């Protein structure tokens, strides 16, 4: 087993375990912290794929900016001690688990069936994930979507302020 494989398996396991903990914890703050653990594990997996820029952005934007927003809202609403949200056992969950398992098995079958993803060899180009390579695509081929993104962010800022405002007058 090479070092790359060991790193991949450790962080893949960490990612799956933390993802399970995110959806099962009762306290939202603890779920948020496991979500941050999940983002860090995913960033390490990105590094095994030679995606350095995306790995850094993952930590900066997701674990940094977005999770701060989540934790801030959880603390603002003081949801830590909400007892009324106790979700117990229900048949809905069993059905959902069965359906989820079915979808997962289908997806795994698609990935490992003969002639599927197995046949693609890893490209040897390590410069795919550099800032230069991504910027090359982003500012030539995808320039228009990039500009539209600014519109989306403006709309999001205005929308967030309007929605969270106490009285609109």
């Amino acid at each position, binding site marked *: 087993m090479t070092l790359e494989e060991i790193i991949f398996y450790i962080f893949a396991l960490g990612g799956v375990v933390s993802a*399970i903990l995110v*959806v099962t914890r009762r306290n939202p703050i603890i779920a948020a912290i496991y979500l941050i653990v999940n983002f860090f594990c995913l960033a390490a997996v990105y590094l095994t794929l030679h995606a350095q820029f*995306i790995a850094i952005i993952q930590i900066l934007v997701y674990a940094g900016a*977005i999770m701060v927003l989540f934790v801030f809202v959880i603390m603002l609403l003081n949801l830590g001690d909400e007892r009324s949200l106790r979700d117990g056992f229900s048949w809905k969950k069993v059905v959902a688990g069965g359906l989820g398992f079915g979808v997962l098995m289908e997806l795994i079958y698609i990935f490992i069936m003969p002639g599927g993803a197995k046949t693609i060899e890893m*490209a040897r180009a390590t410069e795919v*994930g550099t800032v230069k390579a991504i910027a090359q695509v982003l500012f030539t081929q995808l320039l228009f979507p990039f500009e539209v993104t600014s519109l*989306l962010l403006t709309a999001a800022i205005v929308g967030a302020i309007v*929605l969270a405002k106490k009285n609109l007058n």
Partner: protein
Amino acid sequence: MIDLQYYLILSAVMFVIGALGVVTRRNAIIVFMSIELMLNSVNLTFVSFAAFLGDSTGQAFVFFVMTVAAAEAAVGLAIIIALFRRKRTVNLDEINILKW
């Protein structure tokens, strides 16, 4: 060398966990975090295909997905704050004013 399908299976497992979180949990914030989990697993698929095909376009797309996720988090959390102010709860079973 790790094959492509290991990355895809990891991504599928995380997507299904996130989807199960969305359908089974009743706390709006945790449902929201499960959506982030699903977005992240899709990002992993994009990045792994970009790496295996040697094309940076997939990674540029991850950039857009992250932008959309940031916008979605800002607006969604504002909606949750507005709902909490009105209903004093984040329980999705009690938030049914759009139900017919």
